[in-house]
């Protein structure tokens, strides 16, 4: 299992477009991927869960993956969040 913390920096947070970009990226890996925010732990491959968690700008999240491509999965998703989804 690999995990890393990252802060959401794009102004609108993980809403419609960034959420779909994020979930699509997560679905590109075989590992199970989760997003942990506070006491919530959600399936990163679920657009409905990611959106309904309403992750806003400034929120710290932990991305956790376990499976054969866990390192690549965490790396790619952390980079995506750090990059601000092209909004910043």
């Amino acid at each position, binding site marked *: 299992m690999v995990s890393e913390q990252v802060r959401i920096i794009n*102004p609108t*947070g993980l*809403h*419609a477009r960034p959420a*779909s970009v994020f979930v699509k990226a997560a679905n590109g890996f075989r590992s199970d991927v989760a997003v942990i925010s506070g006491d919530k732990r959600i399936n990163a491959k*679920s*657009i*409905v869960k990611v*959106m309904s968690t*309403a992750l806003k700008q400034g929120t710290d999240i932990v991305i956790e993956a376990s499976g054969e491509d866990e390192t690549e999965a965490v790396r790619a998703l952390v980079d995506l969040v750090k990059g601000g989804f092209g909004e910043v």
Partner: protein
Amino acid sequence: MKGIPASGGIAIGKAFVYSKDPLRVSPETIAPEDVPAQQAALDAAVEKSREQLLAIKSRAGEALPEKEAAIFEAHLMFLDDPEYTGIAREKIGMELVPAAFAVKAVTDGFVEEFRAIEDEYFRERAADIADVGERIVRNIQGAAEADLSLIEAGSVVIARDLAPSDTAQLDRTKVAGFVTEVGGKTSHTAIMARSLEIPAVLGLTGATREIRAGETVIVDGDEGTVITAPDEAEIEAYAKKKKAYEAEREELRLLTGAPSVTADGHRVRLFANIGLPADAEHAEKNGAEGIGLYRTEFLFMDTDAMPDEDSQFIAYRRVLEAMRGRPVVIRTLDIGGDKELPYLKMEQEENPFLGVRALRLCLKEPALFKTQLRAILRAGAHGDARIMFPMVSGVDEVRQAKAVLMDCKRELAGEGAAFDPEIKVGIMVEIPSAALTAEAIAKEVDFFSIGTNDLCQYTLAVDRMNAGVGYLYDHFHPAVLRLIKLVIDAAREAGVHAGMCGEMAGDEKAAALLLGLGLEEFSMGAASLLRVKRAVRGTDLSKARRLADEALRLESAGAVRALLEAAGGTGSRG
């Protein structure tokens, strides 16, 4: 039945009632051996939903900007969501419930979760998940889909309201007319219907309940009447009227290239109002000599993030290039009031129409304001762009806005960017205080444009969308006419242009009166251009001046209307 006439013309067609009735899903239990069949039904419904959404998405992608396409993209992802359809599938086996019930239960759970979110943007996603859930359930039940993309040619669309995402699905060549329960002349549906020249009656309460699907309906978009189950005589009478309307449209087309001059030779300018860059072509086709009002809000509303300077620049430049050197008046962001942006936090206000709207908002959000001004200034290097500030209440606001504009020019000059340093600046006169102090404001600007919709609303204290008081809204009220006169006179005195971009400018019945008041520039929805041109060409300016003098002395809107009616021969040939 009578509603608000929002787009002219006659339609006779079959009613297509677009209503989303609550679905009925029963919670009976199923036998364990039925589980595979129910799961297969779910899978098939998901596949069918995918086909429908892909079809809608491809149409939306062509017709409208990213926002709707992005929404459908999210809808498509819901279909494969392990925590959504995946859980519903499991539920069928574990709880022995039918597929429709399982989908409904999981959907309702998420809808509630979304509704509990504090942030409004996320909260509104409840509608998206409900939408997809409903689609899947309808497909499981094999219920006829209330899908606007399925309408037959010659349909009259009857709906409570039509959102941009609804109209994105429409095959517009198949729509004969529109009837909605909410909305007025300036709503999205009205603007769209007029630009497509499709008759529309809006604000017809109870339309979706009282009009039955498939029955013949007559829509008179000029009178605002809707007739259901018409008899032979009515159909014949309206078919005749429709023919006359279409003949008139043909006749008007011949005026496209004709100059806009009064019968006694005074030249005026007829401009078009647009909301989307694509509208510029429609304006051109109807002989617009320029764009008198480019509403930039759509650029900000059809996206889920603030459009950056470059994307605004590209949109503005596109309009300027389409108009090939003719003037384009770009109105800075008019948000607030009834228009909100999902990504911009705005305080809830008791009275938004008297609150932080338009220029007031821009002055509070200098970053947003400067981005837009810089984009307009840069676009100005590609044509005759002009900047117009909305919702000005007095000269101080104009000075503040101009100071921000000056900053932007300095920045751009420092960066060595191409822009128009001499760009013309004007204001929209739509608050009575601005009209009453027009003399002072005229010294600060290059032009005025009278926005009669808000000017009427603020002068008469009437919300036109409020069915209870809408009857009091009338741009022929002498109070409004006197304010218009003040503005035109102040402009002439100061040597600046005075135009009008409110709906009154597109009202052919008002043309002679406005000419008489001294108006020289009329800007309106493209569909009204040729009619107003015909009215202008049929008006004798000296007679119009006498008509205006008389109107200014009258006591009520009714009296002014009666005067215009009586003067019909001298005013417009109409």
